[in-house]
């Protein structure tokens, strides 16, 4: 008997849900809202998979790089996009007395945290004539863009087993086009303030086993001061102006590495390792939504921000709805002194300037995401508790409650069976509305610079954009993509709550 009762009840509930869904499905705004919310929820869960970069990665492209698809416009057609390549040298000039072998170093032995090298080189010399010797490694690449804003090269090198020999390593960039030219980027004897090629050999100190990291970048002053004289620039030396001279046209370019040895006696020997050579062109166009002032990918930050916003919205809404419903039901159902106290408390809280109070409290007790959630929940339940209370007050006087009382139902039974089911739709609709409220409050806080500095929320992206010059430099993708995301997400919830309201509220349902 009991189980069949339960089965019937379940059937009724299922048909109710089905009926509700039938009605909801016809509400176009509601469906749009639901689709938006689902989209964001899926994004939040898949964030580590679909996000193209780690949100904390910096220097992925030039600061304030345009979105990649902006290259569709003819003006931006030739903007370089980021290129990161291994430098895959081949031997262009060898020497009988020098052994050049290709090795692949075990990153563990080198003590690197990570290497992605496909090619490392070992240059060996073990006795021979005492004339200066030279070998040449070359890597050619095609450069199909307008002149780049920043290029970087990096590699590690070390010298071991050195005996009676001077050495010099030099890296230079060569242009093969109509006017071939070669620019020396770095050499192992280079000291700041000696812009001319300083190709003296040296043996006075060795770096031992530990490979030294060389980073050459046209936005480092040291590298610039070396390259600028070679392109004939005397003033207005910036990475851009220098590279404009170096990359005047699209076409073939190359990187050349020279290893020069100067043995002082016949039993001289040495071993030079070139490890992990890498070439990076920082693009002026990057990703789907460009980069910020640190060259970080905005899309990735946006994708990771979904989780923050969604969880803030949901958690705050659930807590505040629970508090509000509880207080409202207790007030309305118990009445009397309890009601009076509760309603005075609500009045009092409603008279507090909530947003300024939030600012002050957040700054006092630390800018922590959980604290912000807690405070938001604690300061946003009042409106709902008022509505619930008045609803409960009117429900209490309804005929079905009276008949339940007459047939001997207890207060608790009435509360659970009659009152709560009747306020559930109201509570649910208002929860849907308080989610965007919480999201907006948090983003406003972060936007004013009161957000959790450890969390990359959407509001904080806008705050960064305002503070780091997105406006004067016209970086619309940086300002507006989080703004649009905030808007879209809150619109989703508002749409759903609007649709629910249309279905649940009988006064609105009549009009069509």
């Amino acid at each position, binding site marked *: 008997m009991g189980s069949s009762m339960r089965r019937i009840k379940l059937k009724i509930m299922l048909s109710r849900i089905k009926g509700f869904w039938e009605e909801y499905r016809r509400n176009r705004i509601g469906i749009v809202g639901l689709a938006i919310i689902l989209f964001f929820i899926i994004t939040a869960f898949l964030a580590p998979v679909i996000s193209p970069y780690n949100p904390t990665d910096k220097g992925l492209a030039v600061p304030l790089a345009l979105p990649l698809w902006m290259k569709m416009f003819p003006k931006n057609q030739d903007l370089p996009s980021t290129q990161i390549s291994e430098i895959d040298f081949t031997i262009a000039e060898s020497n009988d007395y020098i052994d050049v072998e290709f090795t692949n170093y075990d990153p563990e032995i080198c003590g690197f945290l990570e290497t992605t090298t496909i090619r490392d080189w070992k240059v060996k010399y073990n006795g021979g004539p005492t004339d200066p010797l030279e070998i040449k490694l070359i890597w050619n690449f095609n450069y199909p863009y307008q002149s780049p804003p920043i290029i970087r090269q990096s590699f590690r090198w070390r010298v071991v087993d050195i005996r009676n020999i001077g050495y010099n390593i030099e890296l230079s960039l060569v242009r093969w086009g109509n006017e071939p030219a070669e620019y020396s980027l770095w050499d192992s004897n280079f000291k700041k303030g000696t812009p001319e090629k300083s190709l003296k050999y040296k043996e006075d100190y060795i770096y031992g086993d530990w490979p030294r990291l060389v980073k050459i970048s046209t936005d480092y002053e040291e590298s610039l001061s070396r390259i600028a004289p070679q392109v004939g620039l005397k003033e207005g030396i910036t990475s851009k102006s220098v590279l404009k001279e170096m990359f005047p046209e699209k076409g073939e370019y190359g990187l050349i590495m020279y290893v020069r040895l100067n043995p002082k006696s016949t039993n001289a020997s040495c071993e030079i390792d070139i490890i992990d050579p890498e070439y990076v062109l920082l693009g002026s166009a990057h990703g789907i939504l460009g980069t910020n002032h640190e060259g970080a990918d905005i899309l990735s930050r946006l994708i990771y921000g979904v989780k923050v916003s969604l969880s803030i919205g949901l958690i705050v809404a659930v807590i505040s709805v629970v508090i509000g419903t509880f207080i409202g039901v207790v007030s309305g159902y118990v009445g009397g002194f309890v009601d009076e106290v509760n309603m005075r408390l609500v009045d009092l809280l409603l008279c507090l300037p909530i947003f300024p109070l939030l*600012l002050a409290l957040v700054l006092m007790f630390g800018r922590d995401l959980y604290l912000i959630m807690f405070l938001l929940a604690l300061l946003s339940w009042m409106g709902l508790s008022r509505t619930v209370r008045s609803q409960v007050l009117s429900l209490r006087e309804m005929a079905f409650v009276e008949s339940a009382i007459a047939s001997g139902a207890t207060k608790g039974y009435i509360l659970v069976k009659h009152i709560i089911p009747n306020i559930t739709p109201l509570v649910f609709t208002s929860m849907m509305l308080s989610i965007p409220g919480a999201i907006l409050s948090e983003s406003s806080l972060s936007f004013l610079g009161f957000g959790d500095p450890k969390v990359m929320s959407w509001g904080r992206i806008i705050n960064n954009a305002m503070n780091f010059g997105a406006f004067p430099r016209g970086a619309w993708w940086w300002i507006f993509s989080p703004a649009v995301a905030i808007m879209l997400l809150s619109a989703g919830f508002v749409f759903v709550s609007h649709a629910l309201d249309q279905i649940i509220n009988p006064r609105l349902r009549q009009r069509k």
Partner: protein
Amino acid sequence: MGLGRYMARRFLIAFTTLFVIVNVQFFIFQVVNPVDPVRLMIGPGFTPETRQMLIVLYGLDKPLFERYFIYIKNLYTFTFGISFLSRRPVIVDILSYLPNTLYLLGLAMIFRLLFGIISGLTAASKRGKRWDVTIVSIGLISWAMPAFILQLLFRFVFCSQLKWFPFGMMTSYPPPTAPLEYLKDLLYHTALPVTTMVAMGFGSWAFYTRNLLVGVLTEDYVLTARAKGIKERIIVWKHGFRVILPPIVTMIFLGLPGLITGAIITEYIFTWPGLGWWLVHSTMNADYPSVQAMFFIYSILMLLSNFLADLTYGYLDPRIRVGMRR
């Protein structure tokens, strides 16, 4: 007599609430507050003597009990003590920022109501037509869309890119001296913030007015009026607008606090030298005398607007007026 007693009761409640709020504030800012304001005021190079001097100067060495009375006295005499940040009496700062905020908000409010109510009335009287649908959608959008998005957009397009409007502050620096020129300059600087505030606010007013009026226009007496052949315009104004005026006025007053706190972000975006901008600034710098003063003023404004809402509702709605007489 009835109205007088009603007012007196409301006033008493408001005053009690204010007193409680003031106490809560004192508790938050001076009892549990873990931030040491003096530490933020002085640099690392300051000697302990300077520190002690500052503590004495701002009365932070006095016992809590005494500080409480000083605090109460400061608030209720509207002197508010001395700002940690500007080192001036707080009231001087407030008096220099408050008019700017009131000017901005007043202007925004007037235009919002004007556009909002007129378009709402039009929408309701043309229910179901294209105009109505447009108004409803704008209302929904401006409900869902945070105001700062439009403000960022306007600042970006019209200030930073097109440079049609100046950015920040109320006037050029130095402000023009001729009164007419000054007014022109002021309006030129006001245009953008006010436009954005109106654009973001008027939709919800239109929505609200429209929904109220739609409800009223289905009443029997409107049907009667229509049957008598009264012009639609007159029905809307005399039978419709008169009836929905009390809730609208109430909403105006109830919306005031939200308007004031909403202005914090507007002022921040357009660096408008108003109370909101100053509040963010002084909160950031732990300038508690100023923050307390602002809270006090905000609370008074809140209470005042609630009080006025009650009052006008009582006055405008004959049912309540009669009820009060009884």
